[in-house]
């Protein structure tokens, strides 16, 4: 029986890695992966609490989150493709035309 705190620590760690990735990487692909990490950290949290309270709603919800993540990846890759076509690169710091 793994105690609840371990799940939460795992989830927090994964989420922090995701945030770190978003803040420090310049490649759009790394961005996408980091976002996936954060989403899944939230998923871990949901499942852990669902188990802890003996309520299956959280787990069902996580299934939806996963489906959503798949959709997000599809859209995200599309965006990255367009980014590449327009800027010949996938470095997000180059794409600064939508500014004041």
């Amino acid at each position, binding site marked *: 029986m793994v105690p609840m705190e371990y799940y939460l620590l795992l989830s927090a760690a994964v989420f922090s890695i995701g*945030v770190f990735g*978003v*803040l420090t990487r*310049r490649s759009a692909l790394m*961005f996408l992966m980091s976002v996936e990490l954060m989403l899944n950290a939230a998923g871990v949290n949901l499942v852990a609490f669902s188990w802890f309270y003996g309520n299956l709603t959280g787990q069902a919800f996580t299934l939806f989150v996963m489906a959503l993540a798949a959709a997000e990846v599809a859209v995200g890759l599309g965006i990255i493709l367009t980014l590449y076509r327009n800027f010949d690169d996938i470095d*997000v*710091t180059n*794409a*600064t*035309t*939508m*500014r*004041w």
Partner: protein
Amino acid sequence: MVGALEFTPAIPLLPLASFFVALLVGYFAPRLLPKGGAIPGIVATAGSLVMSVLAFFAVSQGDYYAETLYTWVVGQGTFSLHFGVLVDPLSAMMLVIVSLVAFLVHVFSLGYMNDEGETGLPRYYAGLGLFTFSMLSFVVADNLLMAFMFFELVGLCSFLLIGFHFREPGPPSAAKKAFLVTRFGDYFFLIGVVAVFATFGTARFVATGEGAESFPHLAEQTLAAVGGEGAVPEQVAGFLDVVGMSARDWFSVVGLLILGGVIGKSAQFPLHTWLPDAMEGPTPVSALIHAATMVAAGVYLVARMYGFYAMLPTVLAIIALVGGFTALFAATMGVVKDELKQVLAYSTISQYGYMMLGLGTGGYIAATFHLMTHAFFKALLFLGAGSVIIAMHHNENMWDMGGLKEKMPVTYYTFLSGSLALAGIVPFAGFWSKDEILYEALIYGAGESPILLAAYAMGLLAVFFTGFYTFRMVFLTFHGDSRTETAENPHGVGWNVKFPLVVLGILAATVGLVNMTPVAKLTGAHIEFLKDWLVGTEGTAFSALGYEHYHHLLVDFAGYGAADIGPLVPAAISLALALGGAGLAWVLYNVDEPTEHTEKLGGAKTVLYNNYYQDEYQVWLANGVTRPLARAADTFDQGVIDGVVNAVSSVSLFSGSRIKRVQDGVVTHYAAMLTLGLVALLVVFGVAGGWF
């Protein structure tokens, strides 16, 4: 005869129909419009005339009519605004006058406009139709707001018709002047209307129907309560608390505000300057609007709400003094004018001064009588002048005329009838009415209100000038030798000019016989028909609109009392003065080769010729006072008000221009800000929620 009055709303609506016909058919299918719109106009005004006469007979059977036609704003727990029709002896009389003069002017226009080959006739006849509609609606209005609306409409029509020849420089300028000067007075009238609504909660002239109240009656109740009888009506008491003035003072203020509109429209001093310029309009328009009907609107309004004015001695005295002064003032200017229509314009101002004098001195019947006689003889004089102008190929200078008597006898004799009426020579119409006004002014002035004697003196003096300028005009135009080629061979005029002249000429000679007060007083014969007509009924809501009631108000509230003076001596004095003026004109101007004697007046002539520099003075008022004031206000507006607003907005603009740099387009920075924001929020929640 009950049925006749049910059709009253159609009296004004017929000319409205002719307006639409002239306008729409004239625009879309001018070929289909006979005589440029004259025929629909003549038919419509003839219809109005017939129905007005029927209404007149119905009223003479004692059958009055007051009906709310359409409530266009329904008040929730407060007053409503409505259109309504009120036919009582006063409005029935006015309906006949207006529709008769309008009808004759339409016929005359055939000769003056159509036969002279004017263009733009549909526009002209549309203007006449709209004017007739507005004036008739004004006459039958049963509340002050409706009266105000049509008061404004007649002003608009006057603007449109004065500026009919809009391609020449003079008429548009005169039209603008007329509109602006009368609007200046109407502005006060508008405030007065609002004040009446606020004070009384109603603007009806007469209380008919369930729970209806009229404002003169409420004012009477209030003033009676101040005198110790009965209670002040709730609404009035509440509003007087707000105003913080005594009932009498506040009512006087309201009365004076409404009087502002009257002074503008009836061309009283100091707002008379527009009327002489308005002579730029076509002559039939001058006859219809600037002599017989529209200018009468102001005087008619005072007569219409006389139940209100009769209780306010201060306002009455002001009306009398303004009237008396205007009568004299305008008459002196008429003495030196060279153009036929200008003389008539100043005589119009002067005659309306007499009516105001009559109303102010308690001579309600006399003033109404003069309103009627003046409408006929002044329309006659203007149409006669129009006939002369046709004959003279549109030259209006009297010094170019002369000797037209033999060449156009119909015009001459009708014009003479009108002139005798204007000068006030017995037994023509003007004598009876003007003399009665002066007589009333004298007896009330000598009785209890000595200030009216000053107004009387001015009115009396003006009689002399009236006699003089009237006959100077007649002699210069028609007598002596012809002074120019045109006057040798004048252009002939047709039946459509002569017919209106003859009708009005007969009326000008005879209409004074309906109220021969001096004769009635001397012989004891019962011949004061107009007085009987206006005296009012007993025991109905309409009794508040009769002379009987007004007289009671004048005596009880305004403190008017009549001195016992016989009618013969005052009548003889005014007749002698009129004959004196006419006689002087005879001596000076009824010669073969008249010369300009006005030169002998020296400096006075220059002053008179320049209208006492009233125009210059008003232009100075506009340029020297109003302009700098407006400029100062503009500076204040631009500098202070706009300055504050701009300062406030510049703060936003400046901070915006700095803060917008946050949006630099780098996604990573946005993500960092999101994260930082979330962390900050967590810290705040943590501190506030006591997690640490």
